[in-house]
């Protein structure tokens, strides 16, 4: 029994305390959050752009299709289809080993891939939000003499944002966990740090459970924050 506990303690010590290894986890968390933020920002920018193009294309009058917009729309559709139709792990490997095979900055390549990946999902979320705004709103704006872009920006988009935020929060949490995948291409985030320690101590349980616990805490923290944010949004709905 005593042997078990002393073994337990020494493994714990090796996994977290020896040579200040906990610092490596902290550093990893920092990178994880940074990659999450960067890829989320990119995903939202890309997703908003793709969504606007696709909605703009869909809302053209029959018989008045702009060929250029049609072409861009087709590109957007291919993008969404390919990204959503292939595993993120495969995308990461292609990006690091084929497209950016000479790059040493694995973390950046990872963030870029996650951003491109997230953009496809975010575009569908935003597109849904834009399409869900009552068409009467667009008609009312246009009937006052406002043009399509102004009506979109002043009337449709602000209403869509509200309905899209919860789903975007969800996307953020998924992205936070998915950053762990960039370990496979050498991105230096939390799981990468844990694996480095595993390789030195030949002990997997503590680094992995520790990593899982850190992700869990992060996700719970952000879920709580998002929940608070949503409640506040709904309050302003009532008044």
């Amino acid at each position: 029994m005593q042997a078990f506990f002393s073994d337990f303690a020494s493994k714990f010590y090796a996994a977290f305390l020896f040579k200040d290894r906990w610092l490596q986890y902290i550093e990893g968390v920092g990178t994880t959050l940074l990659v999450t933020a960067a890829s989320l920002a990119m995903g939202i920018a890309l997703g908003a752009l793709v969504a606007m193009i696709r909605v703009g294309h869909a809302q053209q009058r029959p018989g008045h299709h702009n060929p250029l917009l049609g072409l861009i729309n087709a590109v957007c559709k291919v993008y969404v289809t390919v990204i959503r139709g292939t595993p993120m792990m495969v995308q990461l490997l292609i990006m690091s080993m084929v497209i950016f095979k000479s790059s040493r900055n694995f973390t950046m390549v990872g963030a870029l891939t996650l951003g491109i990946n997230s953009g496809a999902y975010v575009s569908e979320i935003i597109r849904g939000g834009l399409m869900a705004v009552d068409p009467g709103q667009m008609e009312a704006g246009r009937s006052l003499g406002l043009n399509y872009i102004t009506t979109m920006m002043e009337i449709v988009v602000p209403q869509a944002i509200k309905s899209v935020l919860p789903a975007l929060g969800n996307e953020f949490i998924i992205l936070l966990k998915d950053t762990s995948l960039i370990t496979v291409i050498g991105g230096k985030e939390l799981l990468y740090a844990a694996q480095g320690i595993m390789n030195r101590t030949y002990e997997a349980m503590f680094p992995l459970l520790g990593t899982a616990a850190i992700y869990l805490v992060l996700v719970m923290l952000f879920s709580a924050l998002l929940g608070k944010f949503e409640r506040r949004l709904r309050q302003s709905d009532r008044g």
Partner: protein
Amino acid sequence: MIEVKHLKKQFGGLTVLRDVNLTVNKGDVVVLVGPSGCGKSTFLRCLNRLEEPTSGEVLFMGQPVNDKDIDKVRAKMGMVFQHFNLFPHLTVKKNITLAPVKLGLMKQEEADARALELLGRIGLADKADTYPNMLSGGQKQRIAIVRALAMNPEALLFDEPTSALDPEMVGEVLELMKELAQSGMTMVCVTHEMGFAREVANRIIFIDEGEVKVDKPPKEFFENPENERLRSFLSKVL
């Protein structure tokens, strides 16, 4: 003021309007009636090109209504919708001032003053800073009318403005429309309110089979309907 020539509108294979010809003069209050599905609303929406006519022509103040100048035409031809379509994320005042300010017709302060004046006229000045979801249907529709009026339009289109209202709210909206009509506003209304048509309109138009079948002043329209279909329609609604 509004001239419609050989207007035709098809949805896919369905011909809703076959050949509509109509001239609306300045100060006219035209009420469109007809059986449901006869194309009254489609016709109204063709006037400001919310629906694009399949063929035919619409002239507004002598200018053809086409895609090129459509925003300018719409700025002068207001529309009031069945479901109000107020902007829920904006205050009542902002609902009214958004278009005049964005189109550069007025500065924000001027537009605010005009909005308050118009709201005062309908007795809703105290609602200027509330959001539309705090208002009753009748209040919403009257504010939607004010929103259209804030553009100083030459003509107003009403697409069943009272059909989505609780019965006790219908009166206040019709009252406002009546005041507008008496002030000389050119109006084209699709409505089922026969009392309003009789009292306020100077022309009532019966659309059937995609054409204007009857175009008469209210007295003749109701008392001496020659058209067989109109007689049967009136016997159902009156």
